[in-house]
């Protein structure tokens, strides 16, 4: 079963990202890298990446012709999706345990959300 683990942050990414100082950023990067390695080794890792700033987003509505293109993210917010993991876990308990590790490593809250599953469970 796959889960998405999302991390949110402010709209502006300075050269420090959303971190208060350089040392914290370096440590968070190192910890997150080590966490990713553990995910890989244990077979949980599907994909992970960080996103560029929300200001770089563009919304496209292709339901009309010609498509309407709008500058900026889909929803106005104080915090935006900043990065995510997609993991493979047996159940929510395992996903939550991994999310707690990821949260500690990247120094942010992590939202855990399951992907739709059509396969038989068990």
């Amino acid at each position: 079963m796959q889960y998405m683990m999302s991390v949110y942050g402010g709209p502006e990414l300075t050269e420090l990202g959303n971190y208060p100082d350089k040392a914290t950023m370096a440590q968070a990067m190192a910890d997150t890298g080590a966490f990713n390695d553990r995910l890989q080794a244990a077979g949980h890792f599907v994909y992970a990446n960080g996103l560029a700033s929300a200001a770089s987003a563009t919304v496209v509505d292709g339901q009309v012709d010609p498509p309407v293109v709008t500058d900026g993210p889909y929803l106005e917010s104080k915090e935006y999706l900043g990065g995510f993991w997609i993991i493979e876990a047996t159940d929510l308990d395992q996903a939550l345990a991994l999310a707690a590790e990821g949260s500690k490593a990247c120094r942010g809250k992590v939202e855990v959300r399951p992907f739709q599953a059509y396969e038989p469970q068990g």
Partner: protein
Amino acid sequence: MSEPGIAAHVAVAITRAHQNEWARVVASLTKRFRDLDIAEEAAAEAFATAVERWPADGIPPNPGGWLTTTAARKAIDRIRREKKRDDKYREAMLVLDDEPLEPLGAIDDERLRLLFTCCHPALAMEARVALTLRMVGGLTVAEIARAFLVNESAMARRITRAKDKIREARIPFRMPAAADLPVRVDGVLTVLFLVFNEGYLATGPGTDPVRADLTAEAIRLTRLIRALLPEGSPSSGEVTGMLALMLLTEARRAARVSSSGELVTLDEQDRGAWDAALVREGHELVRSRVLWGETSGEASGEASSEAPGRYQLLAAINAVHTSARDIRDTDWPQIVALYDQLVTIDPSPVVALNRAIAVAEVDGPDVALASVDRLGAALDGYHAYHATRADLLRRLGRSPESRAAYDRAIELAGNTAEAAYLSRRRDQLG
């Protein structure tokens, strides 16, 4: 037996089966079909079938087995009928014994798994309470809705949403990992304590001040988890403490509300009206944890390895109260000592408020008032804070301030009996 005699006999058997077997039937179906929704509906259908069939066919020799088998058949019928699941999924659900062989440990039981699933921390607290009462307690949606003053369709939606989340996010139906067990047991206790408190101090203008059905259900479920989690497993001390706390509180139920519907506080209660059997059982449980008398050097029995948690300390405080024949015999220094221990693990303002009430009896109302006044910022919206201040101010002869505090407490009190009591005390001020 005459026909009405048979009907009564069957009704008793069904009620007993419902109390003893509901959770087991739901749990065993959940384990087999991995779907709470199917388990719940099939269990309800099986009990409805029992109501139809037992009067004519007789009560089966093993009612639990009969109900489980009947419910499993109903579940299979339903899965076959269902169009919304695709064939592959349906097939998988109907394969017998698809459960990988995992040995049930000493503290594993299907009902315990069910309780942990319903009280999962990923569910909102309201949903945990409702789901636990429905799936483990066997209360109907209408009963739960009434208990929490929510309309029935809103309660049904709350339960459905919770079941959907369990399925979609795959909240597991199994025992938590050993490392998580203390936290998860604590989570179950929080849910059961909420159910108990809603029964004991029911809120809402139209409700009975005490809802005996809810307190009884909370006690029954706490007994269940205590029976399933044997002594020595993590948190078993807190489960015992919770049960003792509930029993010692429940013991005073009859004495707690007057015939005119007014709250009777501990100092004015007719102690002869307390339920002696519940008091005795509660005291035995507290003594089994060696908490009571420890601070005054009377400790006896086996030492417990865990440090006492909040429920054990609260139970011990209640044990001290209920062992005094008269309010004047209360061992207040012992109560203050227990609150001192409680403050170290729970430094919340509510605990500090309750400690101050005991301090008033040892060091006087002026000392207590000084501590209470420090809690104003945190507890200004809490009726008990104002009620406590009102009482201390009254004892210090500061009537106008006391009256103002009573006014505020009455305004904030959600419980009808409590509001009636506070109004009388206010009106007695000189």
